[in-house]
């Protein structure tokens, strides 16, 4: 038995073709495929009535925590004067290394939420077919910020505009492997993995990456 479905059977599963549209030699394969899809469990899932209470108990704790206070400070509306600032990251890892450069446009004077702050991500991934950066700034969407290969073999880069605040991120290699930035600080993501962190904050006299 082949292990790949015929393209027409895939289109049938996608709802783009009707069963009657298929040539007779594909109908046995199609029937088998439809049988599997029909077996899927689509019953609604009911969550515990106490879920709301548990969430709100955690939320109240977080709102009172020091981290919560920092979060509110970052939210606070302030007038700032951003000057040129570059943050070169150490690039010294033999196997894989990444660099994030934070570049704030010079001479801007505006409210924090509208400051275009450009973060350049550089990642060393020899042999990778695709690399992207996913984080809190793009809803962890691996397709939102692809890196492109540079003229240096194995080095990928992209630049992303970030709002002021703290951002967690990871590199996604070949669409599957999530790798924290080895040149950036990391935090526990709460799910047993590490996320890298870049923080862009307002500071008197200039923008600053923490």
């Amino acid at each position, binding site marked *: 038995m082949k292990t790949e479905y015929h393209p027409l059977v895939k289109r049938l599963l996608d709802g783009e073709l009707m069963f009657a549209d298929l040539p007779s030699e594909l109908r046995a394969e199609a029937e088998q495929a439809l049988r599997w899809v029909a077996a899927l469990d689509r019953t609604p899932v009911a969550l515990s009535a106490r879920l*709301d209470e548990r969430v709100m108990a955690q939320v109240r704790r977080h709102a009172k925590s020091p981290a919560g206070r920092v979060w509110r400070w970052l*939210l606070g509306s302030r007038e700032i004067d951003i000057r040129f600032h570059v943050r070169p990251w150490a690039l010294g890892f033999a196997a894989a290394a990444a660099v994030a450069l934070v570049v704030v446009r010079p001479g801007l004077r505006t409210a924090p939420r509208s400051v275009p702050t450009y973060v350049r991500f550089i990642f060393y991934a020899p042999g990778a077919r695709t690399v992207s950066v996913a984080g809190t700034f793009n809803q962890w969407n691996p397709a939102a910020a692809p890196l492109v290969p540079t003229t240096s073999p194995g080095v990928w880069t992209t630049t992303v505009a970030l709002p002021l605040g703290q951002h967690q991120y990871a590199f996604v290699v070949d669409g599957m492997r999530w790798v924290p930035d080895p040149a950036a600080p990391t935090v526990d993501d709460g*799910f047993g993995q590490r996320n890298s962190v870049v923080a862009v904050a307002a500071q008197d006299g200039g923008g600053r990456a923490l």
Partner: protein
Amino acid sequence: MRAAEPLSDGEVVHAILTGDVEQYAVLVKRYRDRYARYAARMLGSPDAAEDAVQDAFVRAFDQLAQCREPDKFAGWFFLILRNRCFAERRRSHRDARPLGMQDEAIAGPDRSDRHVERAEDRRALERALERLTPEQRDVFVLKHVEEMSYEEIAALTGASVPSLKMRMHRAYDRLRALLKELA
């Protein structure tokens, strides 16, 4: 007397960000069940789904200031929940046992005699779905459990329709190979 109009998501988010933390209960109540089935099918059990939904709500609260379109809180929350499911899948994938060594419990409670064949198919399918990548399982669940179109999935996740189709078609082939292995 007319009943007061419920607050929009954007109004609720604004209230929370200006200090009324208790308003978050409105969003929790509004969206707690919307993606529960997705999480359960991604993670393999309602209990795991409940943990994921709870974690996602707490994380969404922590990151609420980064919700760029507060009136689209539901879609933004879904992406956080989805990321939580991906992280859990990646972790469990590392710990996964080989096919044929997994628990019967994966199949769920549907064991009535009239549906034995369907239940066996479902059991095999669940075991095969366990072996897909999180990205493949995600698009499969959204398409065939949540019964969304590619265009709807693209709008929700930000991925392009061609890339979703490619991922889906690879998932079909992978499932076929796994189901053959299980037969």
